[in-house]
């Protein structure tokens, strides 16, 4: 009963003030002992842990380090919440937008709020984020995109650069270089590397041209 109200307090506070991207989530001292296990399987695991290692603290689970995601709403929400994560930066965090266009391996794909939950593989290409009249274009490398049920779009890519920062001259040079390498490549590894370079550079030139 007491823990139930504490849980409610915790969830409420989480929804309140969403900290800025990358800020450390500080939990209350009272929460420091018990990790939050939100589903049955994790609880089961923790119980087994207690029987096997009674003197050790319970391990934390990564889900306790995340902000709770809101559940799927009944009606289609008006905005799409986008997260773009890079290994070295949290590029876009919880941004509410109207539409995004992502470069799936099968072509450019538009995502609107209320999209069917999908797991998409991304190839190097142009990503554009539309918010009202404001369009933000970025060139992203390969990665994954998860479109969740509650109109959350999570994009995980290895690298993303704003389109303005790409130099057209360098792209042309790279294109020539890699197409030459593809022809002269000897081993499979070199051929694969050259082909990857060629794909990325041609995608970049297409993105610049578009």
């Amino acid at each position, binding site marked *: 009963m007491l823990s139930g109200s504490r849980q409610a307090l915790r969830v409420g506070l989480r929804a309140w003030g969403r900290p800025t991207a990358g800020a450390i989530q500080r939990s209350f001292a009272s929460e420091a002992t018990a990790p939050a296990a939100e589903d049955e399987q994790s609880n089961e695991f923790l119980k087994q842990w207690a029987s096997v290692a009674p003197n050790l603290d319970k*391990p934390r689970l990564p889900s306790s380090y995340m902000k709770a995601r809101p559940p799927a709403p009944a009606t289609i929400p008006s905005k799409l919440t986008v*997260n773009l994560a890079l290994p070295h930066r949290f590029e876009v*965090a919880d941004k509410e937008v109207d539409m995004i266009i992502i470069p799936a391996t099968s072509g450019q794909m538009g995502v609107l709020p209320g999209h069917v939950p999908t797991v998409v593989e991304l190839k190097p290409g142009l990503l554009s984020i539309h918010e009202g009249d404001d369009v933000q274009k970025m060139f992203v490398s390969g990665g994954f995109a998860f479109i969740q049920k509650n109109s959350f779009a999570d994009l995980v890519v290895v690298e993303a650069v704003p389109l303005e920062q790409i130099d057209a001259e360098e792209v042309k040079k790279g294109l020539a270089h890699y197409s030459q390498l593809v022809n002269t490549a000897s081993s499979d590894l070199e051929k694969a590397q050259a082909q990857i370079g060629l794909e990325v550079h041609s995608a970049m030139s297409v993105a610049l041209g578009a």
Partner: protein
Amino acid sequence: MSSRRSAHALSSGAQVATEENRRSDQRLGVGPEVAGHLCENCILPSGMASGSARRGGARLANLLHGYLNSSSTATSASWSQTGIAAREIAPFGARMASNQIVRNRMKSVRSIQKITKAMKMVAASKLRGVQSKTEDSRGLWQPFTALLGDSPGVDAKKKIIVTISSDKGLCGGINSTSVKFSKALMRLTAASGPDKQASYVVIGEKGKAQLQRDSKKNIRMFVTETQKLPINFSLACALADEIMQKVEFDAIHLVYNKFQSVVSFLPTVATILSPETLAAGSEEGKLGELDSYEFEGSETRAAVLQNLSEFQLASVLYNALLENSCSEMGARMSAMDNSAKNASDMLEKLTLSYNRSRQAQITTELIEIISGAAALEASS
């Protein structure tokens, strides 16, 4: 009479030696046997003590040796253990030597204090560098957990426990914590069923050393020197690639210390499922909802799941390596800080006892001289 004269000579000679020692640390004035014991206690190179005995302390050494052998074994044994206790139980002539012991200890404690302080500064500066990287990388694994949930108790036949530890020591208890948690996970796997087996992949020298002691046959692979160059995503990708190629698994448990603050490190277990386990799915939790997701990209769902699993392993491994590195720096900072504090406390106590014994010695010499002079006057 002769013993009194020799004792007098010893004490006056010792006084001179101590004066000189204060100016230049040349003659220790202790016997070679005693010097041998001292060296073990005072972290001195043993050559130095015996060399000085050769130079000037040989005469004193013989006298000391005689006194030592005449005293009981108990006192000599305990005298060789602590230099400070020598004052109370040592024979007469060895008082000068205990001063020297204390001086040597003070020197070594002072150098230890300097070294640990320097190590703390180095760890603090490294921590600052890695901390910002770690905080930026925390966004990388969150989408995967949001999609797939956390399934630490997954019912898998072959489990790999990847223990992340440091290469260097003197970093507090984080490596022992990781190893303890890994061993508990192993026990849990063994307890959950007869056909379930688990093996270790160890990253880091310290974890490998600890796990090798009793679980050598369970270690499938170990990786060391991951921190020679700054950790970046390519390193995590290469490691993930190695693990996926060399070891077959149904689920991977990643054990690492998450960096919460400079004094707090939380042991965490992250779970990554193999593509087959993902495809098999489960009835409950986030994984059960995976069926309702469309899959775009490669031709088959299985291929997409394969890529997903590999990417997840690389991302979570990258974050885990960074968090563990942060925790290591933080733990080393507090360990070295405690060590420097202890060294300065010890130095204070040693200084007090040294001054006390020095003053007592001077007082004794004065009394002897004065009483000798008074005796001469009285007789004349």
